């Protein structure tokens, strides 16, 4: 088996009329990486994700997921390798109970009842909603609705999990609960890709960050490296998280060589320097 979960070679995508939504994308993601993808709306993030999950097929170039070219496999089959949690949970809830919603995927896979039950229990446990099987999804809080959709995707048992703007419209609690679920799965060996506008979350959770700008990859490096180049990020109007900015300003005083990504790290550095 190859070490790569996803390989993308010279990918172009146009939505007709010759306008490039993606231009010459080369991106390889290893198994068990935690990758953040950032960029403004219209930079091509969603188009890239749709190409990875087979919802769109490349105009030019190749996309392979777990060794299979996306052109050679149906979206439904591919969904058992790569789970895609779309934006806005409300557009994806079709059932009248949480259980039905989460079992929708496994049923489509033609599994037997025991296996469906097992998968639903596993998925709901993973997102902390085991007690809510019989609830009516639209009556849940926004955070819980998002978790139901994540569980529904988990029930497909994919090895790669892609989350598109999972924290949009969520409060502080919701954001961290959702990102913690992603982190748990990363620790359990899954490959995670998160698209978000929330830089503090990227800094805190993603080990590698890809910056998209006008359909092209502008930066692709360890998150620490990406956020230590604020001038480049500014070209696409992205600012590193505030704590990282503080670190960059105090770089010389604190003798830092890399970007600081979270509060505790920064605090400990200051305490260290004080001693």
């Amino acid at each position: 088996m190859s070490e790569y979960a996803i390989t993308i070679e010279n990918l172009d995508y146009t939505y007709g009329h010759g306008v490039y939504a993606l231009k010459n994308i080369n991106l390889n993601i290893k198994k068990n990486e935690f990758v953040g993808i950032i960029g403004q709306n219209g930079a091509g993030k969603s188009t890239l994700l749709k190409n990875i999950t087979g919802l769109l097929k490349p105009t030019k170039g190749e996309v392979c997921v777990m060794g299979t070219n996306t052109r050679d496999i149906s979206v439904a089959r591919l969904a058992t390798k790569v789970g895609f949690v779309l934006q806005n949970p409300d557009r994806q809830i079709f059932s009248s109970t949480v259980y039905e919603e989460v079992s929708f995927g496994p049923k489509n896979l033609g599994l037997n009842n025991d296996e469906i039950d097992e998968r639903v229990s596993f998925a709901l446990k993973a997102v902390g909603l085991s007690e809510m099987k019989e609830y009516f999804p639209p009556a849940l809080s926004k955070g819980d609705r998002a978790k139901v959709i994540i569980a529904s995707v988990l029930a497909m048992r994919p090895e790669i999990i892609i989350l598109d703007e999972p924290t949009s419209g969520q409060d502080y609690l919701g954001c961290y609960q959702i990102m913690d679920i992603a982190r748990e799965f990363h620790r359990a060996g899954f490959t995670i890709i998160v698209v978000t506008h929330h830089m503090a979350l990227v800094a805190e959770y993603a080990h590698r960050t890809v910056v998209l700008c006008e359909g092209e990859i502008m930066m692709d490096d360890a998150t620490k490296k990406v956020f230590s180049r604020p001038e480049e990020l500014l070209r696409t109007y992205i600012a590193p998280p505030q704590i990282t900015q503080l670190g960059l300003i105090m770089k010389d005083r604190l003798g830092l060589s890399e970007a600081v990504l979270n509060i505790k790290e920064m605090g400990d550095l200051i305490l260290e320097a004080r001693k």
Partner: protein
Amino acid sequence: MSLIEYYPGDTFFHRLDPRVKIALLIIMTLVIFAVKNFLVIGLIFATVIVLWSSAKLPLYKFKTYFKFLFSLFVILIILQSLFYGGNTILVKPVIPDAVPLIGGSGKVTMEGLVFGFLISLRLLTLVALLPLISMTTPVHLLALGLVRLGMSHKIAYTATTTINLIPTLQAETRTIMDAQKLRGFTTFEDGKWWQKMKAYPTLVVPLVIGAMRGAQLMGVAMDARAFGTSKERTYIETIKMNTADWVTLALITVYAVAALILNFVVL
């Protein structure tokens, strides 16, 4: 892009007073349902297509709609052939007349077949006519036209704003179908028609919930902009019937009368 969304342009049809376009829609709809002759409806359909090109509307967009309509037409024609009745029997009843109650059903009649085709052609013409108005008229002018024709602003605006919602609903439908595919659901791609019918609720439920949520938010936003709060209302735009508008209205009337004469007197 939707077939119904405003398609900017500066053609004669775009400049036409919205009231004339509304009149065109009403008069032609009545004519389409009054006439029974294939030749006449065919002629009206051809006229609509000519008007499309005069308004520089993209004809190719009609193709995707025709694909969708085609299946509807097939169903209509089959149902009408079976159930319309009539004496010219093309296919003998599947169940012999001797059987009580359901005897004689399952026959295909010529009259039914013809009627099925007629309804289909009427619908096709009507579906081609609608975008001619909606795509050449910005909604606020359409609303203004309705108001000047005597409709209350609140109703006119609510009706025309609904047109605006259609592209949003189309986008939402695509998203929901994507979400379903991602969970292994392929009925809409490769299922049989009855499977598709059974699956429609999974598509409609999130769509309706989403639309209700959207409508509620939109209601709040409209209230915040004082919508419908006073009887008197100003309009920054004015519409005025000029000579060309009157002439066009006269031509439409002449055309409608001619079509009726052709159908009922000549043919």
